[in-house]
């Protein structure tokens, strides 16, 4: 995976990712139009397919709204990288097919707008200048869930096999 980094700080909460007033919607298209809008207006139109979000500690804290990772997915973000993630968001993002890569120390090494590469198989993030940063590799079943596009599709695929 290759793409540009959109860098944010610590404690990026789900109200920032997707404000409460848009929870009345359930479709990815509409939700993604409001992704991160408190911090970056028109985030979706600025992001290119495959870009990354980079957060600090406790990314995704707050509400259990699955609308938040759905909005991120709808923007075409290929993965969220952070120092650490909040618990409910971690499950929700995996369940809807957004990879979360936990890489302690990453925010000091990668800057906003940098073009990076992610090697899922080896658990490596490669910065624009070639620095290699390790992230906690995902177990095989989680990779399968993500490759299926989320838990529901994963279960369906398993049923059909």
């Amino acid at each position, binding site marked *: 995976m290759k793409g540009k980094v959109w860098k944010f700080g610590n*404690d990026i*909460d789900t*109200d*920032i990712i997707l*404000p*409460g*007033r848009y*929870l*009345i*919607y*359930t479709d990815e298209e509409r939700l993604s139009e409001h992704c991160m*809008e*408190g*911090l970056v207006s028109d985030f979706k139109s600025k992001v290119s397919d495959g870009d990354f979000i980079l957060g600090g*500690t*406790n990314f995704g*804290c*707050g*509400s*259990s*709204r*699955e*609308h938040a990772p*759905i909005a991120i997915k709808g923007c075409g973000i290929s993965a969220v990288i952070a120092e*650490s993630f*909040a*618990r*409910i968001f971690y*499950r*929700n993002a995996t*369940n*809807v097919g957004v990879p979360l890569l936990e890489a302690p120390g990453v925010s000091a090494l990668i800057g906003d707008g940098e073009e990076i590469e992610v090697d899922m198989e080896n658990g490596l993030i490669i910065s624009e200048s070639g620095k290699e940063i390790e992230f906690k590799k995902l177990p095989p079943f989680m990779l399968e869930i993500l490759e299926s596009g*989320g*838990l*529901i599709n994963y*279960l*369906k695929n398993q049923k059909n096999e």
Partner: protein
Amino acid sequence: MSTIAEKIFARASGNGEAEAGDIVMADIDIAVMHDLTGPLAVESFNKIGTGKVWDSSKIVIPFDHQVPADSLDSANNHILMRKFVKEQNIENFYDVKEGVCHQVLPEKGHVIPGTVIVGADSHTCTYGALGAFATGIGSTDMAMVLSTGQLWFKVPETIRFNVEGKLKENTSAKDVILNIIGQVGADGATYKSCEFAGETISNMNISDRMVLSNMAIEMGGKTGLIEPDGKTYDYLKDRVSGENKNRLKAFIEKSNLRSDLDSPSLEIMDIDVSELEPQIACPHNVDNVKPASELDVEIDQVFIGSCTNGRIEDLRDAARILKGNKIANELRMLVIPASKETYLKALDEGLIKIFVEAGALVSAPCCGPCLGGHTGLIGPDEVSLSTSNRNFKGRQGSPEGKVYLSSAKVAAQSAIEGRIAVPKEE
């Protein structure tokens, strides 16, 4: 040598034992979802294609976030959920008239000590105040639960806050929990089961205990447990019905929902609250906590309500201070009782009259401005003082607005003065 969380998962997993770090598949006793997270869960449930829910008597659906419907989109969500309730014969459905889910479930006797409760809402942890392992989940996980009645969990480690000391008259449980969150940070208890114990907690009523458990998620906690005792039993005994009556009785007879203090997965943090002053969580993080006395902040709106502080005890606290007073000019105040039961009690006790005479707006039970989706939003550069649980950027409307969090006592005193103020010690 086990914690409450380990004891609960030992039973719910069917394994007979469980220790922190174990991944277990647990039976779910109650699953709750509301009008805002329900539609996504129902969509996912339909995609799985099970057809029928696992047990229509164990699913509770209260409407509370967008009630009554404030837009066509909300009205459509309500229709979708009401249809689901009918199709699946959901026994415990509370339409727009009942109140905030985390108040309604305890009131209606759906929370039994020692059970596992999951909710498509992060403040599901509130039920830990009655000794249930209760935690928030997303809509896909909820769809799994609806289909199978089970969910996988990592059995959490426990951080036990041992709280001692008599609270000052102008403070309350809200000040205790804000102080704890300020100390440990917004991710200080991530993945952990929080426990609140000690003399101060034993002396607290159920309402105050719910304030603590409710905000465990604001430090990343998976749940916020309190050892059930006589007060727990007294609160629930006339509220539970059917099979739950026996379960509650059995639990009281066994009464082993205590953490063994030598449990390897238990960490203890001592908190002394005898000198604690009223606390405020300042924008834009719940762990940005300062004593109210140190702040010089003018406010535009005060909100008393929510699953954190919208109970009758909070309304009494506020009414005592507001009685015979008027709120400041140019200030708006919203008072929203957390449930119909709370609303009726407040009417009986004359509290609603005190609020209206003071200049407040009183609304029907709902989540109100807490999550900035329904009513009472703030605009750019406006300042809200709120008894709810989150002050994130944009939480109550404009991202250029600011939200401060406090107890009902501080909120009432501040409404009179038009700025964040410390109530007098009675």
